[in-house]
């Protein structure tokens, strides 16, 4: 396979936090329509890996390539194709859900401003569109952040424990969203301590600190 193959290729990545080596020599390739689930005990380095893949942190050694180009290259257009949601919800508590999503669309150039209300309804935030997010419950805040997924045009989603604080209905809905994304040719990298069930997609499992990849269907 040529170097410029579309998708995310990870080459010989090593990660060290403080003086503790988390993993070395991690290699993997994620292509269209695939899901990578990163597992591992608490403290095994899942968040650290995801931040490296999003370009928010630098690995100790090794490269991350997007469509064959290092992600730090400007012309890799990586930031156009990426959506990252970390441990923090990434929304402004002072603004209402609608205003938060407006901001998001203009920051990432997603066109559909009229899709906002729709996305909020789908996530069960009917009646809360105009309440400042500080007055929402823990799970409702996460739902606002996750509404971004419904409007995003990014091909690669990197989600760090998206199920935190969500109730069962919200998780089920989210999994249907994942399924649609992947079936449309998207990619998904996800961590979670809860089971993930997205049927009919190629699921790759990486159980840190081991760097061996396992494939499940």
């Amino acid at each position, binding site marked *: 396979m040529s170097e410029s193959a579309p998708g995310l290729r990870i080459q010989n990545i090593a990660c060290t936090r403080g003086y503790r080596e988390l993993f070395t020599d991690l290699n993997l390739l994620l292509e269209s329509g695939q899901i990578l689930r990163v597992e591992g005990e608490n403290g095994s380095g899942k968040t650290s890996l995801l931040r490296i893949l999003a370009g928010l942190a630098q690995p100790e050694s090794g490269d991350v390539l997007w469509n064959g180009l290092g992600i730090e290259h400007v012309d890799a257009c990586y930031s156009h194709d*990426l959506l*990252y949601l970390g441990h*923090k919800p990434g929304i402004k508590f*002072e*603004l209402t859900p609608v*205003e938060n999503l407006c*901001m998001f669309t*203009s*920051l990432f150039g997603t066109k559909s401003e009229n899709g906002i209300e729709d996305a909020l309804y789908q996530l069960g935030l009917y009646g809360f569109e105009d309440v400042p997010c500080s007055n929402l419950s823990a799970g409702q805040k996460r739902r606002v952040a996750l509404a971004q997924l419904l409007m995003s045009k990014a091909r690669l989603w990197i989600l760090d424990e998206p199920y935190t604080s969500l109730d069962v209905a919200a998780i089920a809905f989210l999994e249907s969203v994942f399924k649609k994304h992947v079936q449309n040719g998207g990619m998904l990298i996800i961590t979670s301590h809860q089971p993930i069930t997205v049927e009919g997609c190629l699921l790759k499992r990486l159980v840190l600190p081991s760097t061996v990849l396992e494939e499940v269907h």
Partner: protein
Amino acid sequence: METSLSRAFIALLKRDLQLAYRHRNELLNPLFFFILVVALFPLGTTPDKTLLMTMAPGVIWVAALLASMLSLDSLFRADYEDGTLEQILLSSHPLSVLVLAKIISHWLVTGFPMILLAPLLGIFMYLPTNGILTLMLTLVLGTPILSLVGAIGMALTVSLRRGGMLLSLLVLPLYIPVLIFSANAVDAHLADMAITGQIYILSSMLMLAITLAPVATSAALRISLE
């Protein structure tokens, strides 16, 4: 691409102003602080008219420095804490432009109202009219520099838990030239001397800050968020 960048720029500017407006009572806080700090001096030193007038430019400028510095917190801190700063960094637009939008909104919310308030404080401190006018001119040139330079310091300290005090250490020394030339300009004008030199220096500092500060700030932000 161009239009989407300007759209992001305007959206960010608008959002920050919206946030400020949502807390419009907090909008006034830097101003109250500005007034309060100026008021502390006559209380602490002397109510004497001529003495106060001599101190006036320095005192008002020190208060402006402190008010501007203390309001820097709203520039990146909240965005850092709720994770939106991460999202801004991940956006596909050049970071320095987005940063400039944030700095401009900071200035509009803190620096600009201080300029409008200066005459009142001038009267408090017995400054004559020509002194007040020069004071306002120096504030017009100086307060944007404060916001721009302060942004660099804020970006460097945003990820530190107790960054507040460290910020003042980083930023105040950089503010000092602005203070010296501005206060000096007002003093000189009161003594009927020419002030073109000071104004010229302030303008070129402003130009320098506008070109360099956004770049430095965005580099600092990337480091802080690692």
